[in-house]
Each structure stands twice: as C-alpha cells, then as structure tokens.
C-alpha cells in the first residue's frame, strides 16, 4: 500500500513537472514561431540572428527580461501590483491539468495515464478556471493606479464575461455529443468521427470565443495601444511584464489543446491504438496547426472596435451558440427516439445553414451602416 502510494505520488510529480516545463518551453518557442510566421506572412525574414534560424532568440529575450529594471509606480497598491502577474500566471498553468495527452501507456510495469488529473467533471473544471483567469488582469489594471491600465482591466473583464457565455455553450455542445464531461471520454467518443464534422459551427464559435478569452488579435482590446498605451500592463516592466506575456502565450497553447480535444479528436490518429506513444505526437501536431491559425488571424485581421466587439458577442455569438446547442441536442434526441440516423446528419446541415444565416445578417448590417440603406 505504502509503496504504491509513493509511486503514485512520484508519477503525479513527474507528470506535473513535464507538463509545466513543456508549457514553459512551449511558450518560449511559441514567441519565436509567431515572430517567424508573422514575418513570413508580411514578407519579412524575422529573427534569425541568434543561433541557427534564430532558435536561440527566446533565451536571449529571457536574459534581457531578467536583467531589466523593474519599476513600481509610487501610488500603486504594492501588494496587488506584485501578486497580479502571479494570479494571471497560475490559471494558465493549472488549466492544463485535465488535458489528456494520449491514451494510457504501459511503462515500468504499470499503466500510466497521460493526463495529470482525470476528473469526471473535466469540462466544468476548464470552465471554472477560465472564469477565474480574469482576476489577474483586472487587478493588474486597478493596482497600477493608472487610468489607461484601469480602462484596460475593465475592458478585459467585460469582454471575458461576455464571451464566456458563448464559450460555455460550445463546451455544452461538445458534452452533449460525447454524453460525458470527462475529457478522456470526449476524445474516445470521437473515434471514427471528429466532432468538428458533426458540429463545425460549434468549433468555430469555440475558436472565436477563446480568441476573446485569451485577448488575442482581433480581440486584443485590453492592450489596444492606440487607445490605451499598453492597457493593463502599461506600468509593468521586467520579469513582471514577462509573466503577463508568458500567461498569454501559455493560454494560447492550452486553448489550442482544448479545442483539439473537444472538436478535433484529441490524441486520436492513424495507428494510435497500436503505438500509444503516437498520441502525444498527434496532439502536438494538432496544437501547432491550431496555433498557426491563431497567428494567421493576427496577421490578417485588424482589431475590431470595442462597441462592435460587445455587440458581436452579445447579439450574434450568444444567440448563434444557443441555436447550435439546441440543434445538436434535438438532433441527437430525434435520432435516438426514431432510430433514424438521418436526424443525426441533419445536425451539421442545419448548423451550417444557421451559421450562413448569421454571416448574412452581419453582412447586411455592415452594408446598412456603410451606405445608410440596405
């Protein structure tokens, strides 16, 4: 009993260390990846001086940030000013605890599950951590005692609360399809058919809502430099600023992983049953591809105006995600009750039609605004 207890603790410790260190390294190389990819899209070269292909650039950046002077504004709330970056950082790390990185593998004579915590309320755990993540940014804005920082913090809290609803509903859509809230069950339910095929609109809604949740372009309102200098982290410098930076990029990695699990089949892929260690590799490939889409969006879309951001979240995304959840649930219920799989396949058709209708409404509205008539 004692022995197995100890080895269990050791297993948890090793898994937590691997995930944490993986996220930290992932953050460092995500900055490099983003700068190179952005440069490529904008017909530049990007950082390529430090090391081969600029691969040592993140290390140089880290050294620079560590040795930078740290300033604390005289009238800042010292305690919260210190803790705000930490409070931002913690959710972005612990949210990764429930992500399954692969099927159970056998190693050293014991079965090891490739996720830190296999909660049966995994999706709800994600939701609760996502709703707590806003505190760091709000407190950073308030404790800086700076108007711009404060406005950035308030904007971000309003934005994150608004888009959390659409996010929660697209979580619910995936739960309905998998009939479970456990992340592992959701992945296994996609054996044979990824949920993105059944519910493409749900995946897109999830993607848009998470872009707003992690404050990425085109929803990077809290740090819109033309309006707010640097938003909530205007007063931060040195390592404290680096923590905000790290949190943002780790959140990018984590939400890509969550999207991969919920809609793109997680660790599933060809031959994954015969070679379980292929699971994490498929997962990482999917994450890198999804991250590329995020960078691509940043390179091609301008930031949208704040009132339009809120209008989009409340008047378009929320009703659409409600409709999507309703369509999915009723499709499954009808297919179950009548035994006719045709109803199941009506889900993607009706959802895409609803999505196209929404796009048409937006287009009409924009034309009306531009020309003063329909």
């Amino acid at each position, binding site marked *: 009993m004692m022995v197995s207890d100890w080895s269990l603790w050791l297993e948890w410790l090793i898994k937590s260390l691997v995930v944490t260190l993986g996220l930290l390294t992932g953050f460092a190389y995500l900055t490099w990846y983003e700068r190179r990819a952005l440069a490529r899209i904008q017909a530049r070269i990007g950082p390529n001086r430090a090391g081969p292909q600029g691969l040592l650039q993140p290390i140089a950046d880290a050294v620079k940030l560590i040795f930078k002077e740290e300033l604390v504004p005289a009238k800042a*709330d010292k305690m*919260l000013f210190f803790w705000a970056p930490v409070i931002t950082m913690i959710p972005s790390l612990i949210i990764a605890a429930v992500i399954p990185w692969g099927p159970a593998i056998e190693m050293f004579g014991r079965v090891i599950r490739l996720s830190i915590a296999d*909660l*049966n*309320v995994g999706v*709800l*755990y994600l*939701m*609760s951590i*996502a*709703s*707590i993540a*806003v*505190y760091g940014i*709000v*407190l950073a*804005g*308030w404790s800086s005692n700076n108007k711009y920082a*404060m406005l950035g*913090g*308030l904007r971000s*809290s*309003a934005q*994150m*609360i608004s888009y*959390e609803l659409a996010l929660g509903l697209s979580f619910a859509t995936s739960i309905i399809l998998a*009939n*479970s*809230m*456990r992340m592992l069950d959701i992945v296994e339910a996609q054996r044979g058919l990824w949920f993105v095929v059944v519910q493409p609109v749900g995946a897109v809604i999830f993607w848009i809502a998470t872009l707003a949740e992690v404050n990425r372009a085109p929803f990077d309102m809290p740090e819109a430099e033309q309006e707010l200098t640097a938003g909530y982290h205007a007063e931060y410098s040195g390592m404290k600023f680096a923590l905000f930076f790290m949190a943002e990029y780790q959140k990018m990695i984590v939400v890509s992983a969550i999207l991969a699990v919920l809609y793109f089949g997680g660790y599933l892929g060809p031959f994954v049953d015969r070679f379980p260690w292929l699971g994490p590799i498929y997962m990482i490939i999917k994450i890198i591809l999804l991250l590329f889409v995020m960078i691509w969006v940043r390179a091609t879309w301008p930031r949208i105006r704040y009132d339009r951001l809120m209008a989009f979240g409340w008047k378009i995304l929320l009703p659409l995600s409600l409709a999507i959840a309703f369509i999915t649930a009723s499709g499954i219920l009808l297919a179950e009750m009548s035994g006719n799989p045709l109803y199941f396949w009506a889900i993607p058709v009706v959802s895409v039609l609803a999505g196209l209708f929404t796009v048409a409404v937006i287009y009409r509205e924009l034309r009306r605004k531009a020309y003063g008539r329909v």
Partner: protein
Amino acid sequence: MTINLILFLVLAVIAVATALGMLTSRNAIYSALFLVLNFVTVAVFYLLLGAPFIAMAQITVYAGAIMVLFLFVIMLLGAERLPDSRVLPWQKPLAITLAVVLALESAYLLWTKARPAGNVLPPGDEINTVETLRALGMTLFNDYLLPFEVTSVLLLVAMIGVIVLVRREKGGQKS
C-alpha cells in the same frame, strides 16, 4: 482523526478567516477578494462532500462571474476606500446578541441532530457525475418544472427592468 476531518478543520479555519477578512478590510477591493477566497473554500467543501458538479458550478458562477462583476462595479465607481464609519450606538449590542443566539442555536442543533448519524462526511469518490447530472436534470424539469420556469421568468423580468432603466430616450441626452 481521519484525513477528511483534518481537511475539514483546515478549510473551516480558512473559511472563517477569509470571512472575517472580508468584514474587517477597509478597502472594498480587498473585501471582494477575501469573498472570492471564501467562495473557493466553500467549493472545496462541496468537493469534500462528494459533489464535484456543485463545486465547479460554485467556482464558475460565484467566484468567477458574480465576483468579477462586483470588482467591476467597485472599480468603476471608484468606491474602494470606505470613509470612516459613523458608529451607530445600538448596532453593536444588537449584533452581539444576534451572533450569540445564532452560535448557541447552531451548537445545539449540531449536538442533537448531527451526532447520532456519525457519517457527516461521506466518502467523496466513486460518484458517476453524468448520472447525477441526469438525475438533477430530470428532477428539475419533471418535478420542479413550474418553480424552475417561474425563476427564469423572474430573471427575465429583472433583465428587462435593467434595460428599461438604463435606456437612453431617442434623441435625448444621457443624464
């Protein structure tokens, strides 16, 4: 002395301490943050009692959504620092009396009702969450459909009320 009891005692101390911190803090932001900690501690209590769904809902709804709105309003109004409070002469004795009555009452109830059962803290694992969720949904939508719908109408009315109150008249100035 089981591990559950130790966990419970530690959590109870944290919960009481954060509640006291919320009451005594002179800065509204700190009060709100103490309340967040308190809510999270209560969520851990739910986990201890084997109700992970309620625990996560508690964090999402109370610690997440509602308290963020509280912080939002406190910051927007700039009402962080409380002014020095005027002492109401009758407030202290009344509060002390009520607190003592509450403490005595709960002590009596704990002593008489909770003791014989013995199993105040059931084991927290091996609970099928989706099954309990399904049971929750069935109960809510079959046995308690009318109260549920009435609650939703109430929320809708509150929402419409807020919209009417903050609406700007057409062509008028925002006061």
